[in-house]
């Protein structure tokens, strides 16, 4: 994986639900730490854009989708288990 590739994330939240807010905070923190300047986060509120959520087969919130680089990864939950998330996204293999 090219360490300089831009990483694009899509995070579906459910309004101001507690776990959704936690996910936003955790994702932002992770990106700042592992992908400074190389990330892009789009947050979609299911309540505001339900069509998009349905099209994306979203049935649980919060859910984080890493769209790029491939492969697409889906992580459901608050992302509180940092180690697991880092491993799943391969962030630990990147030079800091």
């Amino acid at each position, binding site marked *: 994986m090219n360490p300089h590739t831009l990483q694009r994330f899509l995070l579906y939240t459910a309004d101001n639900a507690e776990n959704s807010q936690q996910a936003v905070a955790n994702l932002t923190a992770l990106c700042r730490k592992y992908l400074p300047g190389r990330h892009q986060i789009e947050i979609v509120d299911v309540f505001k854009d339900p069509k998009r959520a349905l099209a994306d087969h979203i049935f649980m919130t919060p*859910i984080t989708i890493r769209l790029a680089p491939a492969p697409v990864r889906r992580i459901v939950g608050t992302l509180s288990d940092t180690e697991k998330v880092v491993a799943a996204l391969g962030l630990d293999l990147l030079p800091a």
Partner: protein
Amino acid sequence: MKMKKTFERDLMKARTGIEGFDEITGGGLPRGRTTLLSGGPGSGKTIFALQFLVQGARDYKEPGIFVAFEETSERLAANALPFGWNIAELRRKNSLSFIDAQPTPDLIQSGTFDLSGMLAALGAQIKEMGAARIVFDALDIVVALLPDAASKTREIYRLHDWLLANQLTGLITAKTGMEEGASSNSPQIGFMQFMVDCAVVLNHRVEFGVSQRNLRVQKFRGSSFDENESPFVIGRSGFDVAISRMLGRVDTKVTNERVTSGVKRLDTMLGGGYYRGASVLITGVPGTAKTTLSGAFAEAACQRGERTMFVGFDSDGSEVIRNLSSVGIRLDRFVKSGVLRMISARTITGSAETLLVRIKALAKEHRARCLVIDPVSTLSKAGNELTAHGVAERLIDWTKAAGVTLVCTSLLDEMNGQTEGGTPLQISTLADTWIHLNYLVQAGERNRGISIIKSRGMSHSNQVRELILSDSGVTLSDIYTAGGEVLMGTMRWERESAERVAGEVAKVAAELKRVSLDAEEAVLEVRAKSLQTELIAKKVEKSLLVRTTQSRQGELSRGRIRMRELRGADAGNRRQK
């Protein structure tokens, strides 16, 4: 009263349109409430759920949403294709929509999550479609994803509350273990059974090697329902649940129209044939020509151009056709023209209920007006003894309601001594006309006798007749009864011909006697004539004698007078002695 009842029903229940199920539940699933449909793998949950939505959208103008946690919408639509539900059309009209919500296999979990996002998205979809029905298929998959018992319970509550708040008629399906009430069920599914207003369990068992599917309504808050297991099959148009006739169902229309039995003299015995829509039972030990008699009926029906179905359990359709052609019953032409459908039911394995439902489905498909089941006693075999009577009842109920004339044969077991006593299915009490065939063994021969044991609503002959099969067809013959003896077959023929000979002999003898009497008469007449002549001669002789005597006396007295004159006697008046 009636109006009110209909109103209530419509208000409280959402019809599923599934054959039999709406009757069991008195109108369908609880409207605006949640129903849990549970069952083992392959028990038919998804098909039931999909049919509920399809028919709701199509027939009751209630759009629905199918949330698919397990199978993709493409696969669901493909699987439903054989049922002819035209899902594509319903989707186009936006009265049915699928939400693909299958968890991807590489889904990673980290921290807590919930269903609120999905429900919010669904809420938008419901508004847009004006959906009234929703299915969550295989909710157990989502429940399994949730990390702990507390969150599982919480999400189930969330879903249930959401359904109620949206006033949707909800159907949640969930897998259970193979057996009902098995311990492998997740506690959350068990918990759901308490929470929902209606719970339906689908079962798929194998008994004596026979697959038995059945459905049971476990609970239905605020409604009465049939609590028994009801067998069902998944047929060509979806679910078909077997139910017995409910009280208050409208009586079927009866008719005085007669249909021929295919045997002319039997029609005469019955006073014109079977009634249209009647159920006819033909019983007899093996080989008494039960199939032949039912074949004659089928042929006659086909000749009238009535669509007919012949269900044979004993032999293949082609064998039946060949065998019947040997007695002049030619069915092959009707099979070719499509009027007659031969079903070899040996290949249909399953419970009595399954067979009945299958037969019903096939008959409906064929639009049969006449139906032959040969023999119906098969239904009571293979561990079906307990259900067989109910099946027979339903069979007759259904044919009557559909106006189908039913002829079924039933084997009577000689060994069990059931002859004329009753059939294992007790169908004999239900049948309108009961024809019994038996053998009379005499002088080294078996001959077939036919008699009508009962025939409701028509005068019928009390006579036993002999049933004769020949290559030109089936005929009945009077049996020979004389001196308290019943003779059939060769003995009847012998006795009849002996009588004919005896008659001839008697006739000749009588002729002889007449001739000899004629001769005697002639002789006597001749004698009478000669006597007559003799008599005349005698008479002549006699009158001659009288005359001569008189003349002589005259002569004498004249002589005396002359003598007296000559003597000069004076004794004037004295008589001469």
